[in-house]
């Protein structure tokens, strides 16, 4: 064998290195956000796509060379924050980041009080590395070598050349000193504790984040150019125009909610895969039959009251699902022109309206019929969410009814993501408005989504979008969501007494362990409480009305 061969083997051996250790996914994200780096920035630096980075921050692990790079980046960030207390974020506006607040953390740290003695050479490690002196895991690096800062931690087996440690120990700043809990005589403990990454996370995190400092609110550094800016700008402009008069500004904003919602929708579809087809030729069943009348589509609105309440006297709570139509924007919407088809199997990649014969429903005594309060017998046109709900309930998991019989359909290729960015933008704006107690934005957001849904059909108030099919689908989705909530309450042991409209559910029992209470989109709020029972037939309202 020639030297050349050995060289090749050597280079191969040297390329086989240990996989760099990464902190927990949550910590990765936290580090990036504290550094006010966007996913796009970091992804560009690493040469990967932002979605890949999202994956790494939510549980996946990179491998190979890119892993080493990523570990290096996270290490660097961890070191930065361990030695410097984070900048004070309270004054930072969510969206409008002025240049002053975008200063690098080190500048901010230099201005922050109580940081007189920065230990410039000491870096905290997100993942412990073996100490150069004793070989045990150490969570700090000084002058490029991982080592224990406190000599008490460092117990080398041979004679210790501990020249560096005493020189540094007195100069330790507060936060960094906390990083390694070092009670006197902790040698056995340090030896015994396993060098798992979990420990490293625990030790490095409290150090880098004192309890008094808030993390950046939301995704402040990403929102700068996002569609949410439109909402903030509109609210600001309205308030400025009306001299801060909240009522007038709200009224003005509600008045232009429809065009603004369309503008926001356009903004959120930038660079999207599918165009929104706003004026397709729609089948006759979606046309109004008379000027005032409705078309033939059945939206399955629930209007159900339990005929025989459970025996005894009960306290009933009327729950209100928050922002039901906003959540219902996430539904399978047909993208293009609806095409007619008959006699086929259900295709879950398409969505539209279907002529079905609904199955008989035998649970009306405890649960509402998923197709709503239908009086006429025979086949009817239902929308995609209703059909999917029926198919789901007839499936092997639930087995509540027979599968519906599909006769004909008008469908198109569908996606669930058509309004997704729009929905998320409004949800975020809504959550922020609730947090800030900002009633103007709250009302504005509410008007935008509710008016968009109600005028996206054949309405003269919104001529930019003629999608009766979407309007029906979104409404049906809200009703299907309510039905699933009723089902959840039922399976958790509550008695469902009434399901009404889009968002009203009356239940008996301890509902707080089933539905979280609050104002978020996943939470419920109490509308009313009243008592029913065998003695009093009528509903006696006892207050607590919002």
């Amino acid at each position, binding site marked *: 064998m020639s030297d050349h061969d050995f060289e090749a083997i050597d280079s191969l051996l040297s390329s086989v290195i240990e996989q760099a250790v990464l902190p927990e996914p949550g910590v990765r994200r936290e580090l990036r956000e504290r550094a006010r780096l966007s996913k796009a920035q970091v992804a560009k630096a690493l040469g990967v796509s932002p979605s890949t980075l999202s994956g790494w921050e939510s549980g996946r692990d990179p491998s190979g060379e890119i892993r080493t790079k990523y570990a290096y980046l996270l290490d660097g960030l961890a070191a930065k924050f361990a030695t410097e207390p984070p900048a004070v974020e309270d004054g930072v506006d969510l969206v409008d980041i002025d240049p002053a607040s975008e200063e690098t953390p080190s500048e901010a740290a230099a201005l922050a009080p109580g940081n007189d003695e920065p230990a410039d050479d000491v870096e905290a490690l997100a993942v412990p590395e073996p100490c150069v002196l004793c070989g045990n895991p150490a969570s700090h690096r000084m002058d490029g070598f991982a080592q224990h800062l406190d000599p008490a931690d460092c117990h080398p087996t041979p004679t210790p050349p501990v020249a560096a440690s005493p020189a540094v120990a007195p100069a330790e700043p507060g936060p960094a000193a906390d990083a390694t809990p070092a009670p006197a005589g902790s040698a056995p403990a340090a030896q015994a504790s396993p060098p798992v990454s979990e420990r490293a996370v625990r030790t490095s995190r409290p150090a880098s984040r004192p309890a008094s400092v808030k993390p950046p609110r939301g995704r402040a550094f990403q929102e700068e150019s996002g569609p949410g800016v439109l909402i903030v700008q509109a609210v600001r402009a309205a308030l400025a125009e009306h001299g801060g008069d909240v009522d007038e500004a709200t009224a003005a904003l509600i008045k232009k909610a429809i065009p603004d919602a369309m503008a926001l929708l356009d903004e959120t579809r930038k660079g999207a895969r599918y*165009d929104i*087809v*706003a*004026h*397709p*030729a729609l089948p006759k069943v979606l046309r109004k039959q008379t000027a005032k009348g409705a078309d033939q589509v059945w939206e399955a609105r629930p209007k159900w009251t339990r005929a025989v309440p459970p025996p005894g006297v009960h306290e009933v709570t009327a729950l209100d699902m928050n922002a039901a139509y906003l959540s219902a924007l996430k539904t399978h919407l047909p993208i293009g*022109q609806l095409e007619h088809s008959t006699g086929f199997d259900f295709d879950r990649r398409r969505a539209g309206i279907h002529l079905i014969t609904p199955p008989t429903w035998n649970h009306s005594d405890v649960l509402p019929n998923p197709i709503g309060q239908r009086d006429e017998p025979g086949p009817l046109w239902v929308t995609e969410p209703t059909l999917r709900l029926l198919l789901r309930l007839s499936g092997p998991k639930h087995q509540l009814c027979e599968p519906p019989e599909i006769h004909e359909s008008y469908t198109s290729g569908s996606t669930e993501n058509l309004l997704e960015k729009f929905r998320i933008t409004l949800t975020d704006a809504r959550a922020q408005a609730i947090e800030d107690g900002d009633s103007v934005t709250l009302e504005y957001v509410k008007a935008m989504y509710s008016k968009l849904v109600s005028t996206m059909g054949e309405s003269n108030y919104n*001529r930019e979008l003629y999608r009766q099919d979407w309007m029906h689908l979104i409404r049906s989705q809200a009703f299907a969501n309510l039905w699933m909530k009723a089902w959840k309450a039922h399976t958790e042991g509550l008695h469902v007494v009434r399901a009404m409209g889009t968002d009203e559910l009356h239940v008996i029992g301890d509902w707080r362990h089933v539905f979280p209470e609050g104002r978020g989109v996943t939470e419920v709020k109490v509308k009313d409480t009243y008592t029913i029972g065998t003695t009093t037939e009528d509903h006696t309202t006892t207050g607590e009305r919002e």
Partner: protein
Amino acid sequence: MPEKNIEFGKYGADGIKGGDAVADQLDKLAGGITTPVTAKRGWTARLNYLTRTGHARAAAKAAGLTVTDRTLKAWLEGKQKPSRASLEKIERVYRVVRRQNVAKHLLKRLNKDGRGTRIEIHPLNQSRVAQRNKRVLTHRDMNVRRWDKLVGAWAAGDHRGLEDAWDDIIGDLGSDWGSYEYVTSVGFAA
């Protein structure tokens, strides 16, 4: 004319001329009385629209409402009911006058000070065409800046003019513009 549209529908394609589709959409945007002309409420409303002012009467006359003032008076006072032929005439004249009245306003909205209006072109329906004869046709979007010819032809009821105006527009679609001579529908807002 682009080739292969000479015998449109020979292989089962279904559609209408693009200009007609635009006219349909313009009619929808123009709105008007929705009650059918056969109902009393419908024809009286149309007659009122056509005789409200001297200008309206002149326009109706020019558009072909050739009945004597005496008959018109009898209709309006309810002493006489228009015959079926007259009802058809009333409907036709009403559409013409309505288009002329709305055209100016609609044109201004569609031109939008030169910014124009985006239109969606939904291609012809090929579902009954044999696979070997099908074309690859997609839904197309384009911005139309100058609507004068289209709206002018629509207001004048000039079928030929609409066709020409449509051919001018779809020239901007690129080399397969000929495939969009016939369409299912054209959508736009105003």
